[in-house]
């Protein structure tokens, strides 16, 4: 059918429904256009813009065979309390069919404080496992073969230290560093912009990140050195377009920092990975995944002149949207997570964490975690969504939406370039303000009823408080502090002192790669707090920019 004929048909259709234009006052956010046709994608060149899986611009997926080769990695984020408790949960997950580990650390660990620091009071073991030194890391991975498992660690400001501990544990297991597989999040820019667990100011933070890029390209080549994260930007309230735009802008900043430090783009770009949120609007999310791959491929090819295909591939881990879980009628969350899973899978994710129904209330119980993992398995094996590659390609709506999100993302990226890049945009508070404005708008839409959240502002019921939530005992903190004290009494304190002095000297010399020095310190059982303390002394601490 020619475009003229389609246009004529569309006009006739529009005339016929003109009077019947449905008004959905309670669904004010739905797209204005009710029907999409070939006319909406008439300017989209299939070969240039959509193409084939495993080929530039990777709109349809980064691997040629996608889930026809193997499913995504079902990776469940877990960790709480002590290393021994978390080790038990990890082994339970591996026995249940999880194919990758994902470590959650408690907040003192994420901010580089030991469990016995006064600021850690009340936080030890709460949102993840407490790691003070190599001794805890050894327990965390006890009886888990680091040569076989792939481990993702949600750690950012002190990522270098935790990675060093992982390498040291592997050494003790007899696994060489070049066999290690996994990811550290290591994405400090989104910490400033959205997640809040920063330590040092941007400049030394960017140095630590490029040090890791450089060290790993030589010594831990299978390791994903960064997971550039839109997840938390979305959780903080951004829109889908903002999520990928701000994250890709961060990615550009990391590449520029690494290139400035003397690395070649193709030496590290293949180890960059991304982290998206799978939110509620299924088709918008699918379009977002597709658009993000296309934008990144263009950035790498046109801006950085990457040559290796791997450098141009946006490989992504996904987590279902934690902020969309409701405390009201928590079992409804199972359905939300299932739809979000469908979106991530149709969007072509490389790995996925599914949230548990009770996470708006507390850490998930074992039973809830099992349902969340089973959700992935049902989508994989039963739903048919993983049977063909990029099944929504060619949908007039999804292709048009992919174009729209890409366009909006470029507008933001250009704006951030004008400001002077992601670091400057964060220092000016621009990115934070954009996110906050979107978050506020979302909340006001929910409160006015323009947006419906089932069980929250519509279809509410009287509920009994949920039972059987997981609680981390307050005694965990006491026990962990005792472990730490015992460890300190046993270690060679002279060796620790020497290693920390050496690290301090290295920090002061901007041309020195810090990784070997950190690894050195970790091996002496210097604690995370001691190591980060030395770096705090030299680098100072970041002060947040808030513009409400």
């Amino acid at each position: 059918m020619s475009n003229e004929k389609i246009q004529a048909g569309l006009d006739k259709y529009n005339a016929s429904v003109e009077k019947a234009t449905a008004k959905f006052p309670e669904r004010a956010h739905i797209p204005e256009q009710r029907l999409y046709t070939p006319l909406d994608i008439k300017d989209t060149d299939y070969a240039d813009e959509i193409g084939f899986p495993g080929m530039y611009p990777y709109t349809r997926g980064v691997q040629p065979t996608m889930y026809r080769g193997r499913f995504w990695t079902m990776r469940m984020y877990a960790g709480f309390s002590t290393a021994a408790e978390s080790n038990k949960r990890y082994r339970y997950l591996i026995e249940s069919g999880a194919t990758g580990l994902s470590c959650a650390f408690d907040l003192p660990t994420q901010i580089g404080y030991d469990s016995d620091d006064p600021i850690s009071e009340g936080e030890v073991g709460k949102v993840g496992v407490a790691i003070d030194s190599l001794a805890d890391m050894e327990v965390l991975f006890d009886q888990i073969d680091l040569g076989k498992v792939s481990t993702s660690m949600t750690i950012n400001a002190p990522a270098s230290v935790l990675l060093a501990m992982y390498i040291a544990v592997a050494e003790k297991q007899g696994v060489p560093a070049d066999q290690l597989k996994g990811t550290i999040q290591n994405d400090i820019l989104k910490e400033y912009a959205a997640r809040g667990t920063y330590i040092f100011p941007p400049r030394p933070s960017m140095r630590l990140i490029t040090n890791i890029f450089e060290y790993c390209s030589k010594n831990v080549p299978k390791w994903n050195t960064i997971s550039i994260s839109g997840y938390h930007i979305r959780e903080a309230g951004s829109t889908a377009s903002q999520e990928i735009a701000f994250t890709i802008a961060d990615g550009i900043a990391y590449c520029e920092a690494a290139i400035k430090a003397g690395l070649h783009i193709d030496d590290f770009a293949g180890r960059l990975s991304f982290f998206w949120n799978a939110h509620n609007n299924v088709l918008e999310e699918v379009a977002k995944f597709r658009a993000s791959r296309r934008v990144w491929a263009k950035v790498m090819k046109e801006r950085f002149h990457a040559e290796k295909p791997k450098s141009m591939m946006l490989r992504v881990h996904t987590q279902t949207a934690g902020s969309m879980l409701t405390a009201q009628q928590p079992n409804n969350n199972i359905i939300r997570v299932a739809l979000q899973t469908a979106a991530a899978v149709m969007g072509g994710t490389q790995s996925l964490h599914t949230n548990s129904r009770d996470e708006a209330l507390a850490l998930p119980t074992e039973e809830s975690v099992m349902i969340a993992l089973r959700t992935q398995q049902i989508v994989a094996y039963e739903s048919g969504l993983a049977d063909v590659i990029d099944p929504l390609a060619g949908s007039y709506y999804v292709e048009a939406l992919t174009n729209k999100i890409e366009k909006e993302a470029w507008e933001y990226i250009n704006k951030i370039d004008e400001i002077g890049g992601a670091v400057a945009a964060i220092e000016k508070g621009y990115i934070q303000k954009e996110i906050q404005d979107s978050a506020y708008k979302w909340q006001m839409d929910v409160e006015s009823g323009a947006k419906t959240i089932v069980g929250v502002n519509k279809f509410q019921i009287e509920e009994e408080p949920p039972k059987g939530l997981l609680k981390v005992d307050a005694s965990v903190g006491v026990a962990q502090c005792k472990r730490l004290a015992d460890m300190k009494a046993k270690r060679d304190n002279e060796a620790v002192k020497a290693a920390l002095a050496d690290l301090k000297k290295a920090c002061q010399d901007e041309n020195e790669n810090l990784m070997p020095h950190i690894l050195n310190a970790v091996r002496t059982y210097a604690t995370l707090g001691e190591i980060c303390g030395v770096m705090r002394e030299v680098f100072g601490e970041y002060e947040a920019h808030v513009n409400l």
Partner: protein
Amino acid sequence: MEKRIRVLVAKPGLDGHDRGAKVVARALRDAGFEVIYTGLRQTPEQIAEAALQEDVNVVAMSILSGAHPHLFPKVVNLVREKGMTDVLIIGGGVIPETDIPALKEAGIAEVFTPGTPTGDIVDFIKANVK
């Protein structure tokens, strides 16, 4: 007289999830309150001292990490010790229903859990500030 309700919005503890705190801060401003926002990683001592210097009517805290049983009561005690006996202290965040009675016992006037409309918080403050 030109009295305004003054609210200190603070995040005690170490978690960086300030979406809720910021949305609440803006909603309180839009309700005509004066909001002093102190941001992340505030110790109970800092919060109490800021409440004193700013002579606020309300201290509103948000915690998502689970550290509330430890930190909320500590703030209440410190604020009261400073002689601010009539300050309304409220909390919010990921807080299990079962923890709420103990928090109220400790002097937290009200606990707002996820999904609470900001209007409810505004109404509560208006009804309870002395």
